[in-house]
């Protein structure tokens, strides 16, 4: 990976961020619902007060002007003040982000660690009992709405068996100095094994709920592409040449078979980050997704804009990583 490629990627980021910002602005302009009205709610307010409020939120300017101001400020990493928090949007988002990333990464790791071995095994022993069980089992994972599955898990493990907590990230007796914001890391840095265990216990149910559908998808993709690769001429050829089957499978076939897996994993991780508001709601997980959905309903424009930009950057980064992995897995693919 040359420096030039890296620069090229960064340059590519610009149109994506512009496009995303523009779409958000257009959607906000076309969506009925006035932030000032929502904010005022049932309170009484004089027209003068209302105009004042509108002005102080910067909503009295035309849409195009607001878009321009937003772009200029965003270029300096200034995303404005949240309508509801009385603080810079960047701060509000930064507080919530680690929880979301931590949950997503743990879910991703669980999914990959389960899906790839299962998918490969299922492909190698196609139509075996293992294949069928894994296939049907993985499908169970995508066949249940996450919120429902999450509630079932809570009922079973938290209410009935009382071995795992219902909600939250960590108990309240643990005081953890925030270094990275990731509790699993921070507790270890603090050398507090009990707190680490507590954080882990809080992660189990949400991570399973979030990771299970992804496990199912990745397992199926891995199985299919593994089967496909095993049919390719070069694999047959290598086998015919007398190379050990195991070596052919793992050294040659698996690498190529993982390309679609990586591609799908990158996409799914993006949607994990932005799609976990449901898991966050069910498990009272203090992440960003919940905040963004709430902001949409409240028309908290600055927060929506900043969050969507953040998601876009994350997505592009993830794909960058996926592209690097492509070349590692299959040198014939040129970036």
């Amino acid at each position, binding site marked *: 990976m040359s420096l030039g490629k890296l620069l090229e990627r960064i340059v*590519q980021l610009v149109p994506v961020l512009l496009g995303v910002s523009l779409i958000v602005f257009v959607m906000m302009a076309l969506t009925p619902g006035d932030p000032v009205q929502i904010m005022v709610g049932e309170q009484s307010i004089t027209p003068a007060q209302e105009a004042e409020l509108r002005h102080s939120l910067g909503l009295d300017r035309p849409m195009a002007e607001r878009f321009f101001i937003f772009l200029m400020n965003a270029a300096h990493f200034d995303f404005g003040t949240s309508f509801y928090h009385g603080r810079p949007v960047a701060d509000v988002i930064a507080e919530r982000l680690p929880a979301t990333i931590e949950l997503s990464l743990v879910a991703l790791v669980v999914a990959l660690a389960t899906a790839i071995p299962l998918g490969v095994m299922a492909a190698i022993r196609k139509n075996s009992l293992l294949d069928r069980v894994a296939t049907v089992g993985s499908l169970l994972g995508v066949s249940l709405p996450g919120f429902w599955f999450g509630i079932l898990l809570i009922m079973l493990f938290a209410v009935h068996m009382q071995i795992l907590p219902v909600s939250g990230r960590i108990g309240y007796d643990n005081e953890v100095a925030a270094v990275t914001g990731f509790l699993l890391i921070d507790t270890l840095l603090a050398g507090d094994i009990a707190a680490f265990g507590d954080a882990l216990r809080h992660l189990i149910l949400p991570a399973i709920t979030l990771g299970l559908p992804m496990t*199912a998808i990745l397992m199926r993709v891995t199985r299919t592409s593994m089967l496909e690769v095993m049919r390719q001429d070069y694999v047959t050829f290598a086998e015919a040449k007398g190379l050990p089957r195991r070596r052919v499978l793992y050294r040659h076939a698996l690498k190529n078979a993982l390309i679609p897996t990586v591609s799908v994993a990158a996409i799914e991780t993006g949607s994990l980050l932005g799609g976990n508001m449901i898991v966050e709601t069910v498990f009272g997980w203090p992440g960003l997704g919940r905040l963004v959905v709430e902001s949409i309903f409240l028309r908290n424009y600055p927060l929506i804009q900043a969050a969507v930009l953040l998601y876009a950057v994350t997505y592009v980064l993830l794909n960058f990583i996926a592209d690097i992995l492509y070349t590692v897995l299959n040198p014939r693919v040129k970036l």
Partner: protein
Amino acid sequence: MTDAAILSVPQAESLFRRNLRDFRRNRLAMASLIVILVFVVMAVAAPLIAPQDPNETDLLRRLQPPGWAPGGDWAYALGCDGLGRDILSRIIYGARISIFIGLAVIFLATGVGILAGLAAGYFRGWVDVVISRVVDILLGFPYLIFAIGLMAMMGPGLMNIVLALAYKEWVIPCRVVRGETLAVRELEYVEAARALGAGPRHIMWREILPNILSPVIVISTIRMANVIILEASLSFLGLGVQPPTASWGSMVSDGRAFILEAWWVSTFPGIAILLLVLAINVASQGLRDAFDPRFSE
């Protein structure tokens, strides 16, 4: 390769028949096909087979347990929901909505996705840049947030749900097709076809597409499951189908609140989703295993 497969067919039996026989031998796939058929018949014949009016509310039957449980009534075999409506009848009618949403979104999305992905992966250059940027922009939006935004913008309604879900769904097959095309276009047989003077259309449709179709089918079927679930997610966020229409997703979502008091309200539609999705996937896998020459044993 196709030619080789045809040559290997015993003379007395056509390829189709042999494939059909293979498929029939796959008992799991046959069972799934039957399940799907049952659901489709259920959806089509809903007015004939539903024991009750699915929208008839009666608060006196609120949260009535299933027929076999104490306090149940076999006229309402699977019990009643929070408004005293018959859950069985709502599941039967709900099959229409859920199947429609799943099919509509997936057909729309897969069609667009294949075209865009093939073009991007084959032509590369500026076509790839443009399509990839559009895909990036759309994928840069978290899926649900985009759907919520669109729903807020367009207002509720069945067609709007389909659009809100399809707007982004197409980028997933597109991404996969592009990635696969990138890999496949370098393979010998594509090079060979190109050397023989085949045009891009021929190469894309005849040489590349058949070779990358299986992952697309796998992903599309799984995504169809996902679409049905996403519809439930929209319901969870208060943006689902309009009442009193029953969709399985909205039934699970509305029923989740009662899960401690009346498990049947969300469990039966949940099982319906599970069965259908499972069946579609198993059957599609069986079909492909039987009909795709590259997979025939």
